């Protein structure tokens, strides 16, 4: 299943890039994220509660950043184990385009796979849930960016 999107962000590309690598901002922006621990510059462990249709589960997730090309792009891969609820894994290619005048555009293309009970009971709903999660993430991200030092010129 593939989803993708594009978001206008009222902040300079460098600032957005740094925010995208900031564990605290990511934690606050990821819907349902309870914990995000930075293991290294490119590795995070997270605990995320997600609800897909009738299945609600707490995922232990491992997130890795690959293909780093600062401040233009990276690939974010994640794998979450939700116990009896099953698992989710995905990869998102994230690109930042500089629009000048303190603005940038973030584009992403993601593919996601689910397994176990999430697939069994919630497969019809996964794409919608994924879109909603992605939209929630970017809305949060832009809002947090606005409040934080990154967003200030």
């Amino acid at each position, binding site marked *: 299943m593939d989803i993708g999107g594009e978001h206008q962000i009222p902040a300079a590309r460098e600032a957005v890039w740094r925010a995208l690598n900031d564990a605290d901002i990511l934690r606050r922006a990821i819907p349902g994220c309870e914990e995000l621990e930075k293991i290294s510059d490119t590795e995070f462990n997270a605990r995320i509660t997600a609800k897909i249709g009738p299945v609600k589960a707490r995922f232990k997730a491992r997130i890795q950043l690959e293909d780093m090309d600062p401040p233009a792009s990276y690939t974010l891969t994640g794998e979450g184990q939700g*116990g*009896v609820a*099953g*698992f989710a894994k995905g990869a998102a290619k994230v690109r930042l385009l500089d629009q000048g005048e303190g603005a940038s555009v973030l584009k992403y293309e993601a593919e996601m*796979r*689910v*397994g*176990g*009970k999430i*697939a*069994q*009971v919630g*497969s*019809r709903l996964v794409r919608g849930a994924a879109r909603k999660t992605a939209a929630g993430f970017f809305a949060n991200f832009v809002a947090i960016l606005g409040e934080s030092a990154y967003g200030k010129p």
Partner: protein
Amino acid sequence: MNANTTTTSGIGGSVRRREDSRFLQGRGRYTDDINIAGQAYAVFVRSPHAHARINGIDTAAATAAEGVVAVFTAEHTKDIGGVPTGWQVHSKDGEPMAEPKHPVLAEGMARHVGDPVAMVIAATRRQARDAAELVAVDYDPQPAVVDMKAALAADSTKVHADLPGNLCYDWELGDKAAVDEAFAGAAHVTKLDLVNNRLIPNAVEPRCAIGDFDSVSGEHTLYTTSQNPHVIRLLMGAFVLSIPEHKLRVVAPDVGGGFGSKIFHYAEEALVTWAAAQVKKPVKWTAERSESFMSDAHGRDHVTHAELALDADGKFLALRCSTLANMGAYLSTFAPCIPTYLHGTLLAGQYVTPAIYCEVKAVFTNTVPVDAYRGAGRPEATFILERIVDQAAAETGVDPAELRRRNLIKPEQFPYQTPVALQYDTGNYEATLDQALKAADYAGFESRRKQSAAAGKLRGVGLSCYIEACGIAPSNVVGSLGARAGLYEAATIRVNPTGSVVVLTGSHAHGQGHETTFAQVVSDMLGIDYDAVEIVHGDTAKVPFGMGTYGSRSIAVGGAAIAKAVDKIIAKGKKIAAHLLEAGEGDIVFENGAFKVAGTDREKSFGDIALTAYVPHQYPLESLEPGLEETAFYDPANFTYPAGTYVCEVEVDPDTGRVTVASFHASDDFGNLINPMIVEGQVHGGLAQGIGQALLENCVYDADGQLLSGSYMDYCMPRADDLPSFQVDTTVTACTHNPLGVKGCGEAGAIGAPPALINAVVNALNGGGHPIAHLDMPATPQKVWAAMQSN
């Protein structure tokens, strides 16, 4: 057949069911209703991956959780035997099928979503469920193979690394050379590729099992949702747990529907039985519905190429079929015989087709095991045959009823030897065809089509002339075909001193009404009151032996065993009567419930004979033992061959592709009927499952082996408003080789309905200007609409 006109309680009467009193008042006793003092609850941790190496299982947190009694993994169960298969099929080259081990808990590798990996036992259901969440399994996901063609490719992932590939067997039946020759000389050849969609049985009662162990006596008891408790005792005791039969009791109490899915021996049954002895507590497991979807054996799942050769007069010359049949990840109890001996042998249908050749490749995939589901092999054969005959009719411009009629086996041709091993004993196919066409007003279809067209709908009519081989099965025949056990049935008739009768039967009822039907048979044969006959089934401690209920065998094999035992009772009764009446045994006749000296008015009632047998004051003790109890084993001489014609009319909404069943008429020949009301009900239920397959139901796996249709929100079960009221009737040619002349009626609807419905949809589209040759099941609005847009 009118269920309401007959009031007799004997054979042929539509007696109201005695089991209904308890079911209607919530007094049924299903397995999950049973609670044993001190019982613990089991929950299984199941693989979320279709194929994954298990690097390790950390059970520490689960073991330490509140209420947890034990956590078991393959490490603990490695001495338990694998779940066995009851049938061995040989390939074309004579080699036996590949038969991989089916461990009760996954050993180092999970092979389908739902494969059990660990068993958590706790004091309460909730604690067990919570602790199961804490079991940490380190999975290393492997590529999964779901598609059968892909599984047979040389470079495919192997479901079982220790096998050469994913082929279970490559089987054939029939004379290939004769078929090739017939095709070479054919005037017309019709070809068709079809898929018989994978189904999930979905008895509304989920599976449940309770193990209990008496450490003093060493006796194990298993309560389980089974169609055949004795078979479970045999398989589990002898092959899985090594418990001798006298220390193992299996009880299948009231069971909430089976449809085949509760024939098989499942790992969970063995595990609760074993675990109860380990933890010294009764252990209960009840499947949640989502668990049923990924652990009950599935049904069907065939991909077939078929070709039919006809001569210039539309006579069938030959048929050839090549089928891939999905076995899933492991071989379930009956799995190997379903696409072979219950499928290939049925390809003659009701027709004289001189040459038939069928080959079947059975394939392992990373999916739930596939086994018998209502009809089991016969719906697949019927779908092939009745679709290709319809397509041949369309291609040659002959009316589908007429083309069928030209090729029917005629009444004078019985017994009829088919080219695919079976010998049909009796039938009158033209009679059911005529009856169905008349009752469904086939001749008047055109005017109904016009009416529908005026309302903007496309109307179609479809026929299906099915045959099935039931009354499974003659032991010698199936033994020679690979069955590892005979398939006879046993019954004991125990006459009590005051003349009431207890019948112990190896058949098992899970909706079929045996407690009523069998009592009708016995009361009728003995001339005693229906209420004086009690039927006991479902408990290995009460019933001597039995092979259970499947393959529409209960009345034809189980009923025949009962009739045979009754005959033995009458024979002994005659001896006692001869003594009491001071007559020769040969002069005693048994009529209307009394033993009489032929040609005189001297007689003894059945009750007198029973009392004498148990209170033998005036009794021929020197030549006859007291007591009146007889056991009989009945091994059928042949299969029985129910057959019929179904006529379905559908309306298709051209704007949405939605198919509505406008009418459905079923004419069946089941031989003699014991209880027409129950027979009618069996047909209704079968039709609903057949229409469900054709219109609604579909099991879907994604390419990674994830089960996408794993709930009632995603797997479309037929609801009341998806179905019409049915018209059903019967014709009778009595079975020639069993004492009751019966054939069995449980599976007919599920066998005959799918092609009738698809034929009707194809007919509707063709008649509405959208020529298509075939449409795979289920005919969902999306699929029908897409077919209409493509031309």
